[in-house]
């Protein structure tokens, strides 16, 4: 009896002490770790998506954990304790059979891509070994009001009907798109947020001379662009535009091409096809040399034969200056270049990046009372913004003017609205107006091009 208490009781007691010291007490302390800068709780929809993520065991193949190691240097900045405040369950993962998802909201920021990929991963990545998640989708004969069919390539689509996401799929995609690292003020890794490939691979010369490194360009293209535009450069019909033979890519003046890679693109018609998905901006993810390498890969592959660019050109566009060999930017209205490198406000323009969350919040507090969160307005009282011609117009003049100066007694789609809309020019600055306008232009199925604070300033100055 005595010996048993000594040995087994002692062993249990000692273990209990060790467990308190190395697990329970640290965990009590760590649970109080405050949120890092910009780290926000998930919305109810995103939280629902996280449940779908955990229920289907996504974390068994996908980590959400960037380490300060060479292997992880191209995945983002290393995790900081503040990143975990709202991450219960943590879903950090233990295997990386598939890629890390810490920044998937940035690197695969297109909901269309996410839907296609979930429905059949091999539609966008032929070598993928991820299972399909067709059980998160429904096949319907006619697309119901308010739903959007997933634009699947024909060989991956069901023979009949349209594929629409279920509530679980929408929540999951909302969660995935919310996975973005926040910037930590004062923290920098190679200048940009997150590491870059050329910083970590010592074989690559940094700075301006990296442009000629074709292997580097091919590799970067493969990890950052091929998911949508495909290794063949052919894109996916109806979902992602081709780069092969693409007018912007082939243009001798690289300004537009560089600008799109830096700042992303949304709702643009290319060869008569309008693409629903948004291309994410890469300015925060890659440095100038890497972007130059990617652009040169695109300009010289698949039969494309356009002049190459240098890291200095990328820097120039990033800073809103004209590129080194200035071919006068064509003012072709069909392209409607948001670059407009010639205007004096260009510097401010390229510094602005539409932040969907900010736009959403501003819209909710300023506009949704009348126009409704759904953008559908109230019949006979407040006009819909969804499908509204002024909102969808490629020229944003009327849209911006209405927000700035208000409107009264206007007839929209045959219906006259008597209640006046107040002017918001006095209470919102240019950037806020741009955020709201962009939210409206890209929500509820709307897909018009983005506007910039400079555009707003122009309209404001007109009156």
């Amino acid at each position, binding site marked *: *009896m005595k*010996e*048993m208490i000594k*040995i*087994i009781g002692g*062993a*249990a007691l000692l*273990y209990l002490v*060790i*467990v308190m010291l*190395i*697990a*329970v007490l*640290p*965990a*009590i302390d*760590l*649970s109080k*770790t405050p949120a890092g800068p910009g780290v926000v709780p998930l919305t109810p929809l995103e939280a629902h998506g996280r449940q779908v993520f*955990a*229920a*289907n*065991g996504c974390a*068994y193949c996908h*980590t959400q*954990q960037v*380490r300060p*190691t*060479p*292997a992880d*240097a191209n995945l983002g900045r*290393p995790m900081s*304790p503040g*990143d*975990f405040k*709202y*991450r*219960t*369950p*943590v*879903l*950090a*993962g*233990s*295997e*990386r*059979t*598939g890629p890390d998802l810490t920044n998937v909201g940035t690197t695969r920021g297109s909901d269309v891509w996410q839907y296609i990929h979930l429905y059949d*991963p091999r539609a966008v*990545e032929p070598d*993928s*070994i*991820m*299972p*399909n998640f067709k*059980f998160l989708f429904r096949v319907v004969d006619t697309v119901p009001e308010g739903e959007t069919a997933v634009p699947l390539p024909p060989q991956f689509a069901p023979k009949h009907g349209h594929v629409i996401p279920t509530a679980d799929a929408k929540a999951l995609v909302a969660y995935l798109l919310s996975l973005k690292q926040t910037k930590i003020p004062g923290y920098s890794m190679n200048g940009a947020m997150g590491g870059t490939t050329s910083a970590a*691979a010592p074989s690559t010369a940094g700075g301006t001379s990296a442009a000629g490194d074709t292997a580097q360009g091919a*590799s970067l293209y*493969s990890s950052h662009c*091929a998911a949508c535009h495909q290794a063949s450069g052919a894109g996916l019909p109806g979902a992602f535009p081709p780069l092969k033979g693409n007018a912007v890519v082939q243009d001798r003046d690289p300004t537009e091409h560089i600008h799109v890679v830096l700042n992303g693109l949304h709702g643009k018609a290319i060869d008569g096809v309008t693409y629903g998905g948004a291309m994410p901006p890469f300015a925060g993810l890659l440095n100038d040399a890497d972007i130059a390498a990617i652009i040169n890969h695109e300009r010289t592959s698949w039969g494309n034969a356009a002049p190459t660019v240098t890291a200095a050109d990328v820097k120039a566009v990033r800073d809103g200056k004209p590129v080194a060999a200035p071919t006068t930017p064509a003012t072709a209205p069909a392209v409607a270049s948001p670059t407009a490198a010639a205007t004096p406000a260009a510097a401010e323009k390229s510094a602005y990046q539409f932040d969907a969350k900010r736009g959403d919040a501003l819209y909710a507090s300023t506009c949704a009372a009348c126009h409704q969160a759904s953008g559908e307005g109230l019949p006979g009282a407040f006009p819909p913004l969804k499908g509204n011609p002024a909102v969808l117009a490629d020229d944003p003049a009327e849209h911006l003017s209405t927000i700035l100066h208000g409107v009264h007694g206007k007839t929209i789609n045959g219906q006259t609205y008597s209640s006046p809309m107040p002017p918001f020019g006095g209470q919102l600055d240019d950037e806020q107006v741009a955020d709201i306008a962009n939210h409206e232009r890209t929500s509820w199925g709307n897909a018009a091009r983005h506007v910039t604070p400079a555009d707003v300033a122009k309209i404001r100055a007109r009156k």
Partner: protein
Amino acid sequence: MQSSPLAPASVTAEDEQALSRVFSAYTLTGTLWLLFGTAVGLLVAFKFGAPDFWAEKYLTFGRLRPIHTNSVFYGFATLMLIGAAYHVVARSCGTRLYSAKLAWLGLWLFNIAAVAGTVALSLGYNYGDLEYREWPWPIRLIFIAAVAVTGWNLLATMLHRASRDLYLSNWYIGAGVLWGSIIAIVAIIPIYQHGLGMMAISGYYMHNAVGMWFTPLALGLFYYAIPKVLNRPIYSYSLGVLAFWTNLMFYPLLGGHHFLFSPLPWWLQTAAVICSVAMIVPVFAGSANYLLTMRGRYHGRIESYPLAFLFIGVLCYLFGSTQGTLEALRSLQDLWHFTNFTVGHSHLTMYGFVTFAAWGAVYALLPLSTGKNPGRFGMATHFWLALVGMGMYVIALSIGGSVQGWDWIQHAPFIKSVTDMKTYYLWRGIGGMLMFVSHIVFAWNVWRMTFGKSGDAPSPIMEPEAESTP
């Protein structure tokens, strides 16, 4: 429990039968979980090559994967180890089982938990993909109740032992059930598990479930089964004592090595690395003790399959643990963490060590309990298929995992690390297939040792060597 431990209840033939029935029932249900869990494992391995195969909701990879790990951990390994532990504790204490009823109650609770856990995971009730504690908490409460009932029964049996001294096996088994209860309770309390706090508990749990639950039970079986089969005493009692206390000092801390380079406090990570290295002491002391007990019986290892299973178990304990020490070094983490190398490591340890130990103990002890032997050919088939299958499995994933890690360090496009693994996934699948077939043979052997017709294998106890009695 006031009755004096020095006055053991005399063991009747009825008690012997009751113990034998308990041992058989635990082994049989454990074997069913082995078949189910590894069938799921095989299906999951197959999906690496055919991702669209059975991709339906309830059969999707991410739901089957935790079903595989939980059913082999808490269905198979736990039941097999505890069944043999009842036999070891009662016999080494020279007494009857404290309560056969409690043993049956524990068996029901373990099985109910494992069935409910499997159904819950399949329906998508997963506790945050936190490894080895995915079952929803009510089901884990049932598991905790099962461990508590088992611990009570085993410790009460030890209290009624005939001898004054407590044999080493009982140190490990007795402490193991208490450690197991502490682990399960710490992991289920939610108040300190938010964000990083949850991550710290996960790191603790993942490795303590392995190191302070499965490992002590398996080592406890080694200390009884190896001397029993060899018909000679353990080489050194003191080495066993050293291994016991050092294991307790070093093992609990090393779970943090699953989260090296994470934002967990650096001291916790460094302590984990140091303790992973310090684990060399108990691992080498324990392995040396077992191997020295087998000294001079090289021939016997081939002749006696129970000993062959135990021998492989000891070797994998030595290799697997040493490999774990290496993996915990920060420089090697760079290469291997998050890769399939760790999957190879977990099979070398949970399969090569724990599972072979459980099989060795069952082959060595169940015939003594039931009086029935398996067939010699059946044991041989089981042994070689399992050994070769595991070898292919571990080697394929060790090489593949290194390739994978190297691809990431090179910053190759991610998909390259997927396509590079194809061959290794295939070999892993072939190895897994051999392992699964061996389990069917094992199930047949278990049937012959319990309810079936006794086979032609000789008694697991070897003839004592007259000239080398220490």
